């Protein structure tokens, strides 16, 4: 992979450009870990990568990204709606990646769905809601 950040950058650009999604998650998109004090945001995190070689080059690469909406609160409505919006945007969607051509973008066969509630131990009544997906992004160089 000539630029390991290319797929991340393309995903970020696509999600940031979607006004309904940004209205649900106004604190923006973070790689791996959010800034302190944020309460409605999206996390993008690379989970794994795989490539199939052929003679004189790479046939395709498959990179799996965790894409989840995180919200502070007990309901998680915004996080759920944001996750639904992410699915609409990414499942079998388009993606413009510098240096690559998107072949297919789909939910992972294993562990595709991310859905859990995390207690805030500092405040026993508070919760963090995590809703999202693991997406396999298959590209050809």
């Amino acid at each position, binding site marked *: 992979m000539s630029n390991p950040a290319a797929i991340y950058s393309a995903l970020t650009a696509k999600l940031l450009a979607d006004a309904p999604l940004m209205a649900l998650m106004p604190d923006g998109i973070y790689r791996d870990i959010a800034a302190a004090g944020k309460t409605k945001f999206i996390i993008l995190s690379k989970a794994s990568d795989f490539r199939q070689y052929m003679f004189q080059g790479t046939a395709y690469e498959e990179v799996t990204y*965790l894409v989840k909406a995180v919200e502070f609160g007990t309901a998680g409505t915004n996080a759920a709606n944001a996750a639904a919006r992410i699915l609409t945007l990414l499942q079998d969607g388009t993606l413009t990646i510098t240096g690559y051509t998107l072949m297919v973008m789909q939910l992972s*066969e294993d*562990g595709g769905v991310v859905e859990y509630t*995390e207690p805030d131990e500092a405040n026993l009544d508070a919760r*963090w809601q*995590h809703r999202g997906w693991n997406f396999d992004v298959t590209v050809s160089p």
Partner: protein
Amino acid sequence: MSSVKLTWSGLEELKAALRQLPEELTGEAANIIEGTWNGAALDVKSGYPSRTGLGRTVTVEHRRSRFGAVSIIRNTSPRALWYEVGTQVRHTSFGANRGAQRPGHVFYPPIRRARRKGLAELREMLIRHGLTVTGDV
């Protein structure tokens, strides 16, 4: 009314062989599946930092039937999911807040590798037994 009778010599033997085929393949396929997932479970276990203790709660279960084989890898710790996909709050056992934890990505990547490896080996097994396999994994 005229009739035509076709006698296909050896057909019974062929039928018997086809009936036997799934059971023969099941045994070999089960060995491939169990070996692949045992290896994946070791990869998952070794992926967790020892201080987390999460490697000790990884289990692998194998089931075989006459016509199929299933292997299941689990992490029985309730903290395993949080470690895999990250948390917003992270506290020590003494209650000290250590802030958010980035996604660990320890469990699923070896599973994805194992799936590819296992399917490729199963494909090779079918070809060895004279079956035609189209497509790839």
